[in-house]
Each structure stands twice: as C-alpha cells, then as structure tokens.
C-alpha cells in the first residue's frame, strides 16, 4: 500500500489530489456546518458581564486594537507569537461560555488550516529545495510542484499575525458595549457619524445574518433545493455548487430590498431622534479613569516602547521580506 501511494504514478497522483483538494472542499463545509451564519452572529455579539476588561476605558481598548494590529505587521515572528500568547490571557479573564469558546476555536482554526495549506502549496522555496512531497506531472495543472516546508513555516508565521489581530478584535468586540465604543470614537476626535455607522453596523450585522438565514429558508420552502449531498456523493456536488451559485441572485433581491427598506426606516428614526442635529453629542455614560485604566495605559506604553525599540534597533523586528 505504501509503495502504491509513494512509488506509483497513480498512487502519487491520488495523494497529490487529496492534498490539493481536500482542504478547499472540506474546510468551507466544516466552517459552515459548525459555525454557520447564526454562529457568526453569536460570535460577534457583545457579552454583557462585569469583568475588568468590560470596565476598562473604551478608548484604551480601541487604541490597543490599533497598536496590536500594527505590531502584528512590524514584529518578527517570534515576538509576535509571544504577543499572541499574551493576548490569550485576557480570554481567561473573560471566561466565555463553552458554546462561544467552541465557535471561537473553529473560527480560529479553520482559516489557520487554510492559510497553512495554501502557503505550503503555493509559497515556493526560492532555491527549489525543501519539498516534503513532490507532485507528479498529472497534477501539474494546479500550478504547484508540491508541498514545501518553506511555505508551511511562512504560513505558520502569517497565521500567528492574523490570529493576533483577530483575537484582539474579538476580545474588544465582546467586552465593549457599542455605545461605549461610539463614545470612545468621538472622544478620540472622530465625528459622531463614524460612531453611529459603527454602531449601526454592529447592531444590524446580526440582524442581516438572521435575515439571510430566513431568506435561505424561504427559498427552500418555495421548493428550491439547497440540501447538501453526502460527502461520498461525489457526482452530486457539482450540481449542488451550481444550485448554490444560482441561488445567490435569488436571495440577493429580498435581502437588498429588505435592507434598503429597513435602512430607510432606520434613517427616519435616527432623524426623528435628532441625530446629526449637533456636531457633538453628550452622553449618558461618561467613562471615568480607574486604577485599572492607569495600569492598562502603562502596560500599553511599555508595549509600545518595547516595540519601537525593537524596530529601531532591529532586534525582534521583522526583517524585510521575512
């Protein structure tokens, strides 16, 4: 068997096709199956709790988000992984529910596998060495000579950078009420409209996802078959993909029209509640600095100083192209 898979053209071709196609075919299905639109909605929803993270200055959290985003690009991958590990600690403080933790893990792992796979296949070693598996000529049309260790390592680095930004963003989203975020944006000098747009997007994204689920159900109720074939019903998958593709314009119409109609009403409500009447607003909740804020500001200052030093003196900084 081993000889067949590694020593014959047919066996090697089968292995190559599995490596090339399993991830792009299976991963989206796994992602949709385990998370789905409802999962994304739950993932992004604010989690009302009374933790230190919730009580921190929302301006600090927004700035922290920006700082981490920049550092994820600037830092070399070893310090970046350390920083990523540090961003995991607040999750322990937050203690999300098991359901949300499960969603978070899938949300993190699925794109990571995709990036690892794609870099391993398509980020080729400059010297042409270091392939774990060389594909036979029968797979040449997919555009890669094989699976390379070089690309996989690079993929791991990129995964760390992306996860760092995603983890921080989700942490801020889950622990910051949108109203506080709006307050923070305005107190960081941005006009209220930016805060309102941000607010409306976060508030209505879950609504939009719910409506998408509802419309997809409605399409099926009208007789349009969107049921997935079993994984082994290989012959049915192209037809399924075609059905899903053709469904897109069908569901787009009610989604768009519904959204536009809803947006019109929302705009009128916002108008009626005097939004935009003044350049600045007052707020019911004004954040007052606490000791926790001061400590957090200090930690972030340290982080910034350390990162600036790393970049300035080229230790732990990301080498060009690295």
């Amino acid at each position: 068997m081993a000889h067949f898979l590694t020593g014959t053209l047919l066996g090697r071709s089968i292995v190559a096709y599995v490596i090339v196609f399993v991830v792009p075919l299976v991963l989206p299905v796994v992602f949709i199956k385990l998370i789905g639109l409802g999962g994304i909605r739950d993932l992004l929803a604010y989690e009302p709790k009374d933790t230190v993270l919730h009580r921190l200055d929302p301006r600090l959290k927004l700035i922290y988000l920006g700082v981490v985003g920049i550092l994820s690009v600037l830092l070399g991958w070893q310090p970046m992984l350390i920083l990523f590990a540090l961003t995991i600690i607040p999750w322990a403080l937050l203690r999300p529910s098991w359901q949300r933790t499960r969603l978070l893990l899938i949300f993190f792992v699925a794109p990571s596998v995709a990036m690892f796979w794609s870099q391993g296949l398509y980020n080729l070693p400059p010297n042409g060495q270091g392939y774990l598996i060389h594909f036979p000529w029968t797979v040449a049309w997919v555009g890669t000579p094989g699976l390379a260790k070089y690309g996989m390592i690079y993929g791991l680095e990129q995964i760390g950078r992306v996860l760092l930004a995603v983890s921080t963003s989700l942490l801020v989203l889950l622990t910051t009420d949108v109203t506080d975020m709006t307050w923070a944006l305005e107190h960081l000098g941005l006009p209220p409209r930016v805060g309102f747009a941000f607010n409306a997007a976060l508030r209505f994204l879950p609504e939009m996802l719910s409506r998408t689920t509802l419309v997809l159900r409605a399409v099926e109720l009208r007789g349009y078959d969107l049921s997935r074939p079993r994984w082994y019903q290989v012959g049915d998958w192209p037809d399924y993909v075609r059905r899903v593709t053709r469904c897109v314009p069908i569901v787009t119409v009610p989604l768009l029209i519904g959204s536009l109609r809803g947006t019109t009403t929302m705009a009128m409500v916002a108008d009626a509640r005097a939004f935009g009447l003044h350049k600045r607003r007052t707020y019911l909740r004004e954040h007052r600095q606490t000791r926790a804020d001061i400590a957090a500001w200090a930690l972030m200052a340290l982080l910034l100083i350390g990162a600036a030093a790393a970049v300035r003196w080229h230790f732990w900084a990301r080498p060009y192209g690295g």
Partner: protein
Amino acid sequence: MTVQRPGGQQFPAGQLPAGQLPAGQLPAGQLPAGQLPAGQRRLVVTDLSFRYAGQSRNALSHVNLTVAPGEMVLVTGPSGCGKSTLSLVLAGLAPSRVAGRLAGSVLLGEENISSLEPAQAGQRVGLVFQNPNLQLFHQMVEAEIAFGPENLRLPRQIISERVDASLRRTGATALRKAATFTLSGGEKQRVAIAATLAMEPEVLVLDEPLSDLDPVGAQDVLRSLEALRDERRLAIVLIEHRVDEVLEHVDRVVLLDDGRVVLDRPAADAFADAGPWLAAGVALPEVIQVARGLPEIFTGALPLSVTQAAAVLAASPGVVAGAARPGAPEHSTAGHGAAGGGRMAAESAPVTGDPAQAEEPGPPDGPALAGGQTPGGERASRAGEAAAGVWAGVSLSLGGRQVLDGASLVLHQGEWLALIGANGSGKTTLAGLAVGFEAPDRGSVEIGGAAVRKGSVAAQAERVGFLLQAADEMLFCNSVDDELTFGPRYRRAGVSGAEPAAAGRRSAKRTRLRIMIGSISQAHVLKDRPNDEIGHSGELSQDELLAVLGLQGLGARSPWQLSQGQRQRLALGALLAGAPDLLILDEPTTGQDTGHARAFMTWLEQLRERHGLTYLMITHDMRAVARYASRVAVMAGGRILATGTPAEIFARTDVLTESGIIAPPIARLHLRLAASAGAPPPAAVHLDVQSFLDAVRPRLAPV
C-alpha cells in the same frame, strides 16, 4: 399651502421657523424628571393631501383631523387606505424624508410640523414604527432610550432623568440594563415607545404597534399608552387594524378609506352607523355586533368593551334570569347540558389538559348550543382521521435555551389546528420541525407517515407549505406573475434549480398561471386530466385567484409595490403552487385589515374543504382561531398545555392565564355572563356573534 421637498431641506443655523427653539435649548430639558411639561397644544390637520413622487393618485386626500392633549385617537381602515402615510406626514417625515407632494397643513398649536426638519419635528410629534427591530440601534436598552436626548446635547443628569421617566411610563423599568436582542416583541415595542418618549413629544403617533404582539403583550402596551394619555396628557394617534382590542382604550375613532376620512366620531358613537365600516370593508367589533343585534337591551350608548357589554346584559332581567346562560340545557339539542348553573354541553368531553395526554385527539364535537348549533363541532368533524403530522415528545435546545420541552401533538388530516401561546412559547419552532428546519434533540416528527430529516426543507415543501410570518422574505421575483410561477418553475427544472427556457419565461401570463393551477389541481383535484384542460377547469382561474388574493390587475406589478397585506397574500398564493397537503400558516392575518383577513381566511377554508388540505395555524389572532380553527393546541414553555375545540379551550381560564392568552370577545362575554349569574364556569363558550345572539334572543321574548 404646498410644499415639495423631494430630498429634504436643511434649515441654515439660526434660521429656524418662527416660534421654534433650537434643539438642545428646550425649556423641557431643564425640568426635573416627573415634572415634564404636559401636552398643551392641539394637533390640527387641515385639508391635508399627499401624493408620493411618481404616483398618479393621492395617498391622502383632503384629510381633516384634530387631536387634543390627553386624547387617544384610533385611526383605522383597510390596507392601503393611507394610514401609514398619515403617520409619516404627522411626524414631519413626509415630504422631508419621503419624497412626495404635500398640500394642506399639519399644525401643532401655531407651529407647522411639515415645515420642520425631522429632528425638530421629532421633539413635537414622536412616531413609533410598526417594526421595533428597525428602531432599536443600540445593544442595551438604557443606551437606546438615551440616544435621542444625547443627540439634543442635554446634560447627563437630564438624560438620566428622561431615561428613568420614559422607562417608568412604559412599564419597562426592569428592562433598563437588558440587552435589546434578548427582549420579546412586546418588550421591544415598549422600549421603542420609551425611546420616542425620551424626545419629550407632545403627540405620539404609533403605526400598528400591536401587530406582532400576543394578546397579553398588546394589552400591556395599550395600558402603557393609557397611562401616558392620562398622566401626561399626551395626544396619541394610534393606527391599528385590531379594533376589537383597542376600542375600549381610545377616545375617538377615525376611519380612513382610500385616503379620505370617512368617519371621525367619539368611540362611543363611532359605530352608530355601520354604513361607513361596511363600505370600507372593516368588520365591526364583536361587542358592537352584539349590541346592534340586541337593540332592545342596548338602548343607550354602544359598549366599547366586553366589560361594558356584560354589564348591560347582566342588568337586563331577561338575560340574568336565563339568557345569561347561553347554551343552557333547554336549548341544547345534544342533550349534554348540565342541570342548572348554566354549564354547557361539552362537559362530557373534557379538554386534554395533561401534556402527557395532549397528543390524543380532542373531543370530536363542540358544545351543543342554543338553536342546535355546535360551533366548532362541524369543523371538528373533519378531524379524527389519519394523522397528517405527529410530534412525539419533542425537545429542542437552541442557543442554550430549552425551546421545546417534550411537546406532543397529533395533526389530523383535513383539520385546521390553531397553535396558540405567548411570544416565545415555542410555536414556530415546533412547526418548523415539520419541514426540517431543525431536528429535535429528543422525540420524533413524522409528516404524512414519514420521518422528517433535518435540512430536507425543499423535499418537505412538496408536502408542507410553510407561510413564514415574515412573508416579505418569501418573495424573490420581479412581478406578481413570476412569484406565482416560481415554485413550479424550479420544481419542473428538477433539483438543479435550472432557469426555465427564456421562451418559457416570456410565455403568456395565462400559460404561466396554468402551471400553478396545474400544480394545485393535479395534486388535489384533476389528477387524470390532461394539462391543457387544467386551465379551464374552473377550479381556480388566474383572475379568480388574483381576486381572492386581492391582487386583481396587479399581475405585472413588482411585489415591492404592493402593500404589506397584499405581499402576504401573494406569498401564500405562491406557496400553493407546490401543491402541499399540509399548510403551516405563521400569523397569516398579521398586518391585514379585518376585511382582507376575513376574505383570505374564508378562501383558505374553502380551499381546505374543497381539496382536503390540512392547516396548522400559528396565530395571536384569537378571533381567527374562534372562527376558523377546528381544534386548538395551547403552548407554554415549550410544551403542549392543552388541546380541544376552540369553544372548550376558550372556556379554560386556567389554561389561558398560564399560556398568556386572552380569549376572543364573545367567549369572554359568555364567561362574564356566567360569572354574573353566579354559575360555575362553562365547559365551552360561544365563539361567534350569531350563535351568541341565537342563544340570548329566545330568552328575551318574555321580557
């Protein structure tokens, strides 16, 4: 006066209309909570006409209306009569935000609302829209209510006081720290009202605020509005179809028809002349019908509520002596009546109140009533045959919440089963199992003898048509005609969902409709007839179907140009193309006026009788339940609490209380009369006006 502002108009700073203070400098904002100024100015609408941009007809024509402080005015009328347009104009949103041409004036005191920017108008006339989801911008209730005052740049202390006062006045104080996405429909509506009140308007306009609420939630909102009117002397314009529920709470009634005010009278006097109501196709409230049917008793003002009607009837010697016990033994042809005490015939056929037994078929017949009528009995007689659907001990958790908890139900072929219960009791989830939206964690679901597989929605749609409450989401096409042929088109194309040939799509209207008619007829009536004959079968022609749907002449129109009620009827018409044996109707009468709702439901009833269809109807419309359902299943907490005929279920005050249901007016009237006669509660109640009158009238003869 004529104003045309298609894109809205910005007033330069410092050039606000005369008599208007800049927002944020309102004296009201400086007053402490609880001492906010009561409304003092009248809202006066004079010769108001409005025509939407691009339309050839006026949506409103020469409307005159006055609303005084401390007055609640009901504005009602058939779908598309201009009610929502009126609300937009009153709130200053048309034509500033909704393009159109306005003539006439809307004055609050001396101030012209139509000339104000919405931000300023919103501080004078607050508008609460139908859908609360579109009015809640924030994740937390407190932030939602504070949003308006924050925009006015009021000091923190004042904002806080306004939030407190608004929550208190709407009875929503407990919701202050709640997340908006966790609220029920009624709670969301109250928060939307509170958020509007925080702007301190003098007039509050509500556009069908009760449409998605269960009866108890609706009464909560109405009581909140009464308190606002009485304590704050707020002028309230309430736009509603549900006249029965609203009537006792309002001071005046305005009937709109075709954009015109055809009646404007005090509530007590609004139904003295039934002519305008009948002409507009709006049904009279049931207590009014009773009063009009018993002129010898109701010699004074017409009753506005069950309480008032019961008081008058109870004071009538004839009624108290005997007619307070409608359905008493001497008038029962079935001979089931209990001896004395006014108990009704169906005592011998108890309602299944034990959830463990709830899946058993209900009693085959309803109570014997005066004149030998058995309301519900004839309808129920269709049931008791083979099972169209069986839910056996199903439990389901969604998002960590136990939505269904061992619910068991048998749906018999040919019956019309109403599934009732408060918002969030699990009705829609239970029904959704029949088409495979979810799979139960425990228990099983069978439709037509076959187990339902999760995700097999399209396959199930061949047997089960499911009309979603959000019927708008079921419309995908560019025209009414295309909607009616969508299902057959994709079914005919097979599972691939391929588009039909271009020639097919361009085929004549009549041909396309024949596909739909064919689908219905082939499945239920004309199995052996060739396709060409189907279009001439006379069962359902295109024009007949469109007429019954209330869409005659609209085949080429976009569904989005129809009113909400019209779109709902279109969605159901389109579902019928699938030739289902079982139809699940999720709130089929929501958003429809009584005339259209009754026509639609009557058509459904005829369709069911003619083609042997089975209906499972989820609804908060208890009048529809009373009138059309052959059996009722009551849900609470994810369980089936009781099943029985409507006459029996609506007599079970314990079940109704536990499930948050309010019986229809006639049933409550019957219960009240029985109580005033000192009799024990009847086992079954009258449901419709005619049977109630038939039971009462003979007893009046000696009087």
